């Protein structure tokens, strides 16, 4: 069941990210649904699931991007692992705290990306921060918070977290 859910997330998320999201981008920037999914999976299901899903989603998404495979896999895997470790430290996670957490983690991951990708000279650090990192972090946080709020209203997240982390 778990493998089926994760496979569906991987196979379904890439088309949505590459086909549908370009139509609803803000300032030319799209949210990274892979990042949001990995964070939520890490938080709810633990660091191992976050790590493995991060690696798998990073691999799948890199096949449809110019981004190199290693940076994509390692960044998403690390994010999933960190989200899992963070989820272990909290008893109750409100949507507001999650939004703030996603904003910070997305900013940090975004700041690492220009160095990991070795972008052109024109795409300097300030350009990256103002045109990609901050807008994307805001979008990631908003979408992540929205998904978490929907999940919270439909399921018992605490029970799900404790079940999956036993």
């Amino acid at each position, binding site marked *: 069941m778990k493998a089926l859910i994760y496979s569906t997330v991987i196979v379904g998320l890439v088309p949505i990210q590459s086909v549908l999201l*370009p139509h609803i981008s803000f300032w030319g920037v799209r949210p990274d649904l892979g990042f949001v999914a990995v964070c939520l999976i890490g938080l709810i299901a633990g660091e191992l699931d976050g790590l493995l899903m991060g690696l798998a989603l990073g691999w799948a998404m890199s*096949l449809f991007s*110019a981004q190199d*495979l290693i940076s994509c896999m390692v960044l998403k895997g690390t994010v999933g692992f960190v989200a899992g470790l963070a989820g272990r430290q909290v008893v109750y996670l409100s949507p507001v705290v999650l939004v703030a957490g996603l904003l910070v983690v997305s900013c940090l991951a975004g700041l690492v990306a220009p160095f990991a990708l070795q972008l052109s000279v*024109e*795409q300097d650090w300030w350009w990256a921060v103002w045109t*990609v990192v901050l807008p994307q972090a805001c979008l990631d946080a908003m979408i992540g918070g929205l998904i978490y709020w929907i999940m919270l209203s439909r399921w018992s997240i605490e029970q799900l977290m404790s079940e999956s982390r036993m």
Partner: protein
Amino acid sequence: MRMVNFRVPYSARRGAFFLVLILVVGFLLLPGQLQSVFQEVGGPLGWMISWPLRAVAGIQDRIAGAWGRYVALQGVEEENQQLRRELDLLKEQNGQLREASVATERLSALLEFKKQVLPTSVAAQVIGRDTGNWYKTIILNKGASDGLQSDQGVITPAGVVGRVVKTTASTAVVLLVTDPNNAIAGLIQRTRDEGIVEGTTQGQARLKYIPLLSNARPGDHVVTSGLVEGFPRGIPIGTIIRIDKEEEALFQSAEISPEVDPNRVEEVLVIRSASIPTEGERFGVPKPKP
């Protein structure tokens, strides 16, 4: 309320962590080799994902078509009249160019070359965009199984679109000419000065390394120089809109408005470089006798 059992046995967790550790060590020690292995192994995964990708792209095309035909019709009449005026002007210009093409041997050789290139190119449809925000790319519905491979040039009848950077069995990723990480050898058509065309962060392109003595000016057309693999000589890249000459610089550069709007491109031609004839073959230079 339905719950899903997410329990993982301890030994499986340990095994998974061990595998991940091996992977990370592998990435650190053999990054290139492991990346190519994953790219190869990712073929079936890419093929599997390409099916929902095509399905979603198809649905999106139909919705966009219906929207464009029935809903978004504001200003269509005005646009239609403007396009008709532009078409008349272009017809006139086209006639003049045809006359000129007959008169020059060079242009006729180029036309002959176009006839030769056409069978070697593969038509493909744009089905998506980059999954990240760092690169400006498009995803095509043709891949390695159709003969596509990295570094092949991608064009439309209007001009250069970009370069293939990655392929799966049924899809290909094209880095656009407007991406700052792309570099294509370019040539100013009027002055014959060569340079490198790179994208800019503003969505335009820039021709770099133009000699200081060049008298290039705004309005000049930039075409591919054919010096690097992927593009034959003479395919339009864009028009110069500004010349930048800095004091004490060794070269000057020019800002280019690309001929193709990468955000609106829907169908493209991928040039399979292996079949492109050399300059000598095109102009009929005799081969040296052994």
